[in-house]
């Protein structure tokens, strides 16, 4: 337990106290609302009170007349700014997305008007006096309603915002599932979650001059915000500086600005004076992008010994009206069975538009894969009659099986979930627990043990445009102090601490002598900051490399000054020493003074100063692994769950600071406990959010969270320093671990319908064998009954998913001839990273087809075949991985529709028109 990790040094691997803490403990932090600038005004929003409708009229006259009000803006006032609300991949949205509502509203809380006033109080007063008339329409709130309801966006033909995978059943896969000794059909209905950082969103925008814009904004990376604002607002000529010294949590919500922040920036460009908007908690709970809300059915076939044979996943997520990314969460499928010896997997995955606030990321956005797999494995173990630990041992990919390829062609060569599981069961006496559990059951007490294992992609770099390497700039000042500017950004991650530990270690200086600066886009260089559990892995590598470069320079200079070989110079505790000659020891300060101030004393050709920088490009992906266990007691009288123990055995490679690592895991686990037991963002039938305060949206408190016990299994990764990402893991593995423990406790009553959160009412329904939830919850009959049926019924295939209502179609035209096909077509392909626009050029010669596809990424030629009005051709691409894209296009008049088979990514939709 708590053993020092690999790569331990004087500071790396040590529990040194955090550099961020003294200022935060004494109230000297600098959060966005703490910044005040001269001439600053305040903004407040008028928001839609209805979920769907047309804006008939907006009257701002009364609001404008309030003393202290400077301006009231609607979308019409800001429309001359051409804004492209791009996503995290810097791709344009699939549907028109404007900062303020443009003629229609699509969710309760959508910003309709922005008021600028002397104070926040006056701005809010006036915002409530903006008179908006709406023509109400019936909203589409749930995924079930989205399947058959009128399109949320009138310009689209269905509510599918993104889709991948196979729509038609794969007969071979279906046969494998059907003919297997055991088929487990398992459904999870995951509630909507509010990321709920304790600091809400906020921005202070200052236009310093015609070509300068400074943004103080609470965010996950000032560099990404600067890049996003420049591109989204088309401000290529503007010097944008983004500052965020302290940020009160992000968790995925603060990746980049959205409607409100953009409205404030545009208002500053229009009005000129500095403007601050600080979201209040009510706004945050109704108007800030939310997360999760998804439903999934996983069918998994097992042989008689519990070995996995084949599996199929059908996933749907409620994207809301204006998601930050129209996605169908392809990562759910990519990683679902990646750590297991699964021969074959197929899927269908869809994102749906609804009249709810749009989704954004939340810690472990693809976490459904671990939740549904690990809970399905336990259901299978119970049904087949084997131990839940044993079913994992039989199926996990072990170190000796690696390298290998997952069923989705992901290279698996560095994972240790099986090894983490063995360390976990060495630490936790399962046999003793089973005895205790049996004795307790005799006494009418229900104890349960939950086990889960998983892997997680961390530190990704190089395959997504914004997921870059990280930059470290390290210098020894003329004072001898060490200053580093990093591309990292902490929202509580403690990177000013962990990066300083690395630099102190690798440079040979005291930890106290190192200061790390971040949180300002004018310092360091681009990185996405906190996203994808990456900073320890990637920036850690950069800090090591930059420190080593700088140490080399110090040795070179010291060797020259001391007339000895640089190889004999060693740096320790801020001093340069020469082996065997203590009288030659020099402080780094004295060497730095010469390096900066006396260039004549430097060796020929050596650049003055003591500075180094390195941008580290890690392996494309570094996998982290873990196995967790938790013990619960469920009170059969009340349905309350008490967590008695929780053990996390995780492999994060080198732990730079074990206390920081444990803090990240514990925070993620607490969020997972909230997801399983407490948190739920609910809506009524009219689309009104009904959890608009923290009295309704229940966050875990100290009394809900147990003491976590940690087992560190430190297998160094292949990235420099050996670190693996640890930011998201707890939030991913925590949910299945807890669900499995509750399901184990309540196994005498049957399987739990997995509709999160598992409230006392829902658990009592199982215990008492009657639906107590129906009386207190808003009826959602189709979904609730489907959840119960699917979870409890063995070996059945779920009812086919409803198809969206197709748009009215003209009668089939006769097959077009060459001239009707030949030429340019404007096409849009729905890819996992959002819609990709391209031009397709076709030339036909009888049944022969040739042409090229042209996009921003370049042009690629192809040849193929023509079958009547169908065109078929293949394209081989290398990014994000080597796959063959199989195009199948149908042309009807001036319209083009089709599908593209994208290897493991399934099938993507293609639409187009004459270019």
């Amino acid at each position, binding site marked *: 337990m708590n053993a020092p990790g690999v790569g331990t040094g004087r500071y790396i691997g040590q529990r040194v106290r955090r550099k961020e803490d003294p200022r935060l403990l004494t109230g000297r932090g600098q959060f966005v609302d703490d910044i005040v600038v001269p001439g600053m005004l305040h903004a407040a929003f008028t928001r839609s009170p209805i979920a769907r409708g047309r804006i008939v009229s907006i009257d701002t006259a009364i609001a404008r007349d309030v003393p202290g009000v400077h301006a009231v803006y609607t979308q019409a006032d800001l429309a001359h700014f051409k804004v492209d609300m791009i996503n995290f991949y810097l791709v344009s949205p699939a549907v028109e997305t404007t900062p303020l509502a443009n003629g229609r509203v699509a969710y309760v809380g959508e910003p309709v008007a922005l008021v600028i006033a002397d104070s926040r109080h006056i701005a809010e007063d006036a915002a409530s006096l903006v008179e908006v008339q709406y023509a109400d329409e019936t909203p589409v709130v749930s995924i079930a309603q989205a399947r058959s309801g009128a399109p949320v966006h009138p310009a689209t033909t269905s509510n599918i915002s993104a889709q991948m995978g196979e729509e038609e059943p794969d007969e071979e896969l279906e046969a494998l599932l059907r003919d297997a000794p055991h088929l487990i059909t398992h459904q999870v209905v995951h509630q909507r979650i509010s990321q709920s950082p304790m600091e809400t969103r906020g921005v202070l925008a200052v236009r310093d001059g015609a070509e300068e814009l400074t943004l103080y904004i609470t965010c996950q990376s000032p560099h990404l915000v600067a890049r996003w604002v420049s591109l989204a607002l088309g401000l290529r000529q503007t010097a944008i500086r983004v500052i965020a010294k302290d940020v009160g949590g992000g968790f995925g919500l603060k990746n980049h600005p959205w409607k409100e922040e953009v409205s404030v920036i545009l208002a500053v460009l229009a009005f000129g004076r500095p403007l601050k908007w600080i979201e209040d*908690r009510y706004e945050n709970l109704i108007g800030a992008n939310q997360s999760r809300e998804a439903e999934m059915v996983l069918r998994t076939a097992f042989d008689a010994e519990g070995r996995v044979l084949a599996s199929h996943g059908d996933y749907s997520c409620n994207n809301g009206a204006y998601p930050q990314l129209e996605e169908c969460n392809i990562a759910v499928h990519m990683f679902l069975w990646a750590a297991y010896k699964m021969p074959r997997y197929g899927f269908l995955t869809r994102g749906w538009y609804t009249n709810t606030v749009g989704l954004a990321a939340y810690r472990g956005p693809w976490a459904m894969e671990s939740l549904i797999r690990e809970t399905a494995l336990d259901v299978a173990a119970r049904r087949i009659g084997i131990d839940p630990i044993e079913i994992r041992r039989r199926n996990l990919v072990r170190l000796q099986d690696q390298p290998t390829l997952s069923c989705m062609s992901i290279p698996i060569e560095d994972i240790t979930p099986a090894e983490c599981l063995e360390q976990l069961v060495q630490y936790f006496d399962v046999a003793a627990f089973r005895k205790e559990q049996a004795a307790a059951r005799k006494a009418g007490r229900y104890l349960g043990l939950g086990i889960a294992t998983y892997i997680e992609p961390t530190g990704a770099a190089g395959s997504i445009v914004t997921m870059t390497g990280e930059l470290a700039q390290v210098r020894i000042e003329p004072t001898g102090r060490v200053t580093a500017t990093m591309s990292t950004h902490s929202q509580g991650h403690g990177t000013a601490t962990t990066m300083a530990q690395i630099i102190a270690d690798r440079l040979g200086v005291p930890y106290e002598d190192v200061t790390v600066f971040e949180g300002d886009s004018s310092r360091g260089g681009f990185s996405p900051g906190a996203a994808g559990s990456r900073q320890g892995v990637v920036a850690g590598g950069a800090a090591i490399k930059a420190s080593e470069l700088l140490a080399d320079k110090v040795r070179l200079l010291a060797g020259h000054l001391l007339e000895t070989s640089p190889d004999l110079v060693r740096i320790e505790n801020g001093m340069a020493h020469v082996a065997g000659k203590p009288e030659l020891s020099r402080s780094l300060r004295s060497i730095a003074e010469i390096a900066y101030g006396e260039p004549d004393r430097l060796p020929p050709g050596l650049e003055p100063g003591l500075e180094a920088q390195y941008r580290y490009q890690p392996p494309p992906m570094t996998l982290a692994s873990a196995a967790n266990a938790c013990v619960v007691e469920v009170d059969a009288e009340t349905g309350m769950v008490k967590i008695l123990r929780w053990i996390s055995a995780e492999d994060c490679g080198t732990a730079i600071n074990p206390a920081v690592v444990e803090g990240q895991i514990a925070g993620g686990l607490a969020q997972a406990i909230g997801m399983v037991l407490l948190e739920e963002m609910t809506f009524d039938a009219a689309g009104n959010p009904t959890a608009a305060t923290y009295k309704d949206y229940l966050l875990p408190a100290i009394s809900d969270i147990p003491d976590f016990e940690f087992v560190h299994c430190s297998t160094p990764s292949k990235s420099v320093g050996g670190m693996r990402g640890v930011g998201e893991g707890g939030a991913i593995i925590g949910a299945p671990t807890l669900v499995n423990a509750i399901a184990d406790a309540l196994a005498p009553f049957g399987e739990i319908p997995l509709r999160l959160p598992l409230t006392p009412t829902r658990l009592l329904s199982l215990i008492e064998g009657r639906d107590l939830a129906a009386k207190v919850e808003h009826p959602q009959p189709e979904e609730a009954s489907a959840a119960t049926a699917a979870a409890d019924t063995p070996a059945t295939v779920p009812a086919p998913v409803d198809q969206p209502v197709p748009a009215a179609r003209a009668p089939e035209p006769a097959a077009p001839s060459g001239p009707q096909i030949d030429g340019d077509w404007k096409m849009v392909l729905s890819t996992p990273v959002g819609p990709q626009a391209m031009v397709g050029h076709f030339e036909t010669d009888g049944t022969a087809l040739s042409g090229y596809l042209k996009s921003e990424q370049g042009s690629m030629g192809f040849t193929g075949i023509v079958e009547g009005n169908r065109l078929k051709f293949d394209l081989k691409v290398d990014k994000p991985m080597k796959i063959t894209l199989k195009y199948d296009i149908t042309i009807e008049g001036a319209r083009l529709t089709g599908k593209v088979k994208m290897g493991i990514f399934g099938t993507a939709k293609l639409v187009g028109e004459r270019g």
Partner: protein
Amino acid sequence: MSEHRISMTINGLRHVSNAEARVSLSDFLRGNAGCTGVHIGCEHGVCGACTVIVDGLAVRGCLMLAVQAEGAEVTTVEGLAAGDGTLHPVQQALYDEFALQCGFCTPGVVMTLAALTAPGSKANEQQLLAAMSGHICRCTGYQGIRRAAKKLAAAPAGEQP
């Protein structure tokens, strides 16, 4: 909206300024008195981030109006550490136990623990942990806060744990 002249002692210094009757104590402390360590997390009394000490008691600054604090002794998180920078025992315990990450909820946690461990109002471990259930921390999973609270409960009143 009526405006009032409000005077109170904040962190040992007299403060006098004007505010509307509707202004909360937390907004007053931040906006009028410059105590930006008072953090506003929910404005409905659940999260606890805005907790300050008013006449010896831990109070949610968002649920009290500034006019109600007329004449009161108010301590904020800025007023706890000694003049030479030595941390208050509560701050030191939280620092030693890695009890914070983003630090946004921290001032409220500090003030509740400081009020309950002040000389004369020494709370036991159970009382400190129960009081901590009134503070929402989204980052830490409360591990360090619990360790610090236990340490403080075990130490003599007002002394370094």
